[in-house]
């Protein structure tokens, strides 16, 4: 449908014998919204900095429009960046911040320095301030703006240069939840309106699912999976992806035949195929795919150990033979009750064993706070 714009070819990045990026291959299409998603220290910001030109990969190549750009400095790339904490220039007002890039003389084809005329700078800045809804703020000092306004100045400052690619490094991390939701829509709108490529870095899976055309899930310097939000959610390739994107119960299972998977010594019908007979596998069951049924009708029987009211649904932790599952349901089952459950064949997703097997998917130590903390830790790579 579209052409390839950026390609990372076997890129590896090593800092002080610490492998931050391990042999990354990545294609970015023109005009797509691509998100690099992963926990702190997974290498997503480093990947972004390599694309932006702030770091050179230790080995491997970077191509832009088919041209190798490894040693092209940031100021000669048709790429602009929105930095994590905005990095607005405190000594300049809003107008001058946005005009900053336009005021730098550019070298034309003949090698002569060209300066944009003042009228053009003015009209382009004003146009861009309109795009980000900041008309009337030109004379304000950036330090006197709110977080969301600063964010929009940063976006305007980058976009006014008409880049082919906009890089965004956790741009919404410092905003509160409500503002973050609004800005997600805003960013998506701007991307559509400007018709350019966005490469977006975040550790927030919801944000990634809501905005992206393509999601690249990363961990420990490696790409775990590349795909559309739906693919990533429904067909995670390993336990890490399954756990990182949404909530998942991940259970050891055995593939008895195509369409038949065994967990807890019981066989279930599923839609997956293509595994060896009797191959050990990881089985993902999303909490919303589990139905609570009366005890006697249940495929499996367990005891409720914890219930949390979440507004739209209850989060219920159920103990099955010592393994704790998370179930999201609208039916309340009180703590201590014995329940049965039923899972439809399309509720099973079978994955090959990977190095992440056994590390995720058990809710024994489930605690919401714990989850919040582990996600909330900033992505500062310093």
């Amino acid at each position, binding site marked *: 449908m579209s052409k390839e714009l950026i390609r990372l070819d076997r890129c590896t990045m090593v800092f002080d014998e610490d492998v931050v990026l391990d042999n990354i291959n990545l294609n970015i299409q023109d005009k797509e919204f691509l998100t690099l998603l992963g926990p702190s220290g997974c290498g997503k910001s480093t990947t972004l900095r390599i694309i*932006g030109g702030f770091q050179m990969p230790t080995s491997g190549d970077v191509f832009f429009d088919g041209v190798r750009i490894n040693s092209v400095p*940031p*100021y000669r790339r048709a790429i602009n960046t929105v930095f994590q904490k905005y*990095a607005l220039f405190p000594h300049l007002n809003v107008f001058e911040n946005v005009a900053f890039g336009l005021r730098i003389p550019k070298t034309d084809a003949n090698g002569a320095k060209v300066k944009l005329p003042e009228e053009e700078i003015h009209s382009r800045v004003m146009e861009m301030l309109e795009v980000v809804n900041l008309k009337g703020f030109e004379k304000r000092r950036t*330090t*006197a703006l709110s977080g969301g306004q600063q964010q929009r100045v940063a976006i305007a400052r980058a976009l006014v240069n008409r880049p082919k690619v906009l890089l965004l490094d956790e741009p919404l991390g410092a905003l509160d939840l409500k503002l973050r939701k609004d800005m997600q829509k805003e960013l998506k709108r701007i991307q559509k309106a400007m018709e350019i490529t966005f490469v977006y870095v975040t550790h927030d899976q919801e944000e990634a699912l809501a905005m992206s055309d393509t999601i690249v899930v990363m961990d420990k310097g490696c790409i775990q999976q590349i795909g559309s939000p739906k693919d990533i959610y429904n067909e995670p390739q390993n336990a890490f992806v399954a756990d990182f994107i949404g909530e998942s119960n991940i259970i050891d299972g055995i593939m008895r035949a195509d369409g038949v998977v065994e967990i807890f010594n019981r066989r279930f019908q599923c839609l997956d195929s293509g595994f060896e007979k009797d191959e050990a596998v990881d089985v993902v069951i999303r909490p919303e795919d589990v139905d609570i049924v009366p005890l006697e009708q249940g495929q499996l029987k367990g005891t409720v150990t914890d219930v949390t009211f979440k507004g739209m649904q209850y989060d219920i932790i159920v103990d099955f033979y010592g393994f704790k599952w998370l179930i999201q349901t609208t039916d309340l089952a009180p703590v201590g009750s014995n329940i049965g459950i039923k899972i439809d064949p399309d509720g099973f997703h079978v994955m090959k064993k990977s190095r992440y097997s056994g590390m995720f998917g058990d809710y024994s130590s489930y605690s919401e706070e714990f989850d919040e903390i582990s996600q909330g830790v900033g992505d500062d790579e310093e």
Partner: protein
Amino acid sequence: MKKNGRLGGRLLIGLCFLFLYLPIFLLIIFSFNAGNSSAVWQGFSLKWYGDLLENRLIMEAVATTLLVSLLATAISTVAGTFAAIGLYSLGRRRREVLLTVNNIPMMNADIVTGVSMCLFFVAFFGLWGGFAEWFNAQQSFLELPTRLTMGMGTLLLAHIAFDIPYVILNVGPRLRQMDKNLVDAAMDLGCTWMQAFWKVILPEIKPGIVSGALIAFTMSVDDFVISYFTAGSSTQTLAMAIYGMTKKRVTPVVNAVSTILFLVVLAVLVINNVREARLERQRELIAAGQPVRQSPIVEKVSQTLSSPKGKYIRWGGAFAATAVFLVTVISLTAFTSSQPVVNVCSWGEYIDTDLIDQFEEETGIRVNYQTTDSNETLYSLLKSGGADYDVVVPSDYMISQLLEEDMLEELDYDNIPNFDLIDDRFKYLPYDPENKYTVPYTWGTVGIIYNSTMVDEEIDSWSCLYDDKYAGKVLLIGNSRDAFGIALKYLGYSMNTTDENEIREAYELVADANRRGVFQGKVMDEVFQTMEGGNAAIATYYAGDYLTMLENNEDLAFAWPKEGTNWFVDAMCVLKDAPHKEEAEAWINFIASTDANLANMDFIWYASPNKEALEMYPEWYEEQYDEPLDEEIYNIIAAPQEVLDRCEMYVCLPPETRALYNELWVQLGI
């Protein structure tokens, strides 16, 4: 209870400030004193400020200080800023290590920094000399100077070196506060690193750079110790000049120049603090979301400067300032390097400075006039190789020591015809028996100065120094040679004895008097303040200095003890291998003239060795001041022959005797 505590605290703070500022306050007050005392108020006058402007040595030192400080500030600010940027782009651990290294020079004792730089320069000059000789022998295209000496260049290097840490210290925090991504952002928007530096880093860290520069400037202006060791013999900063002037006695000119220096440094610090307070307030306003108001003038100026037209004003201003500065530097160096020069080192307040101008006018030779505080300091300066003097004016015993060590050059007396004018009494003296090396500069005697309101009897013997009658009112002269020499004389021995028993006996005499509490303390130049203020009854000091004290306290009297005393001659000599021997001899000849001797005798009140000048002085004085010279005063300046007959001149003592003197002096422990 609590209230008392607060009161006590306030009192303590009050005392602290009093202790800190009272001396400075007194110094400022006495800079306006009409008289020349630092203890007795004689009415308001600005005359010392006038003297200051006319004092060539001080004005030259001011020029040197400003030039060195400004250049050092400019260079170290640029270097320190870039060093700080480099430091802050390193990893945390390496940065911490380097910052600690950076802090060491600031905490290091100045004296260690100064001495080590001095040694470094001397060592480098040695290596350079070898290299230059080899290089010059290899080719004839370029002739390198083989003999480098310390001077403006080394002084500047030293100042840059000790200024840089202060700049880094001030710029660093601004860099740490700065968002690291700002530079990335600027480069992302099309700036090269250098453009990002000008457009983003510089405006962000400017306050730090300005305070760094201001601190560096005050440090430079202020510095004495490091300058002292790195300026060489031909350059003098203001602090060094002041130090040299306090050697003899603190004249109110010193007060005046110190007052100005204090006010300049104070002004710079106040400007810096006010500036920082204002920036802080602006930051707070911005944080509170309020608009920042500036005074209309500031706004107008900043508007003009930031308008397109302002660009020309800015560049023009910067260009003009640079041009003026460069022209000054170049003309100063050109002026100083094209002229013949003679480097003279003498004592503070020991010449009528008009003579220097007069000599320069007559001969076209520029005089670089420096001072040190004692024969011993002069000796160590010469020994360390840090000095580059042509003419020195040591005292008799030091001359013998320098001769012993072959450090003096034989003079060509054909170039010094005025030597014939010197009284024969001051030729062929024991320190220079064949008179091949020296021309006498002044001579004088040591005697007893006493306050006639506190002493009833007629003083005619050293015995009063050790008499219980004057317990707590006697000032012991503050060097071992004079203190023990006087005791030896009193006991009837030679001042130059090497007999250990005699010296120990003299020591016992002094130590015993000390145990009985006769001495108030041991003093050198403090003798002026103490005696003028009437705070002690008896002191021993130089006859010429007695007359200075008499001006401020008419109750003081002078006597030569019957046991005899020390008389001394200070003589001009040329150092071995002096680079300007011809000019040096011209200078010596000029100073030996009758006119110069008269002027000097009138200025310093030490006796002239020029026969004609010595005899003519009373007559000349009357002509000059329209009043006759008091005969008694004349006799005190120029001790009559029968006094001299009872006096002894110091000779250089053998090393073991010198060691004994030192040992006993320490043992005395006053």
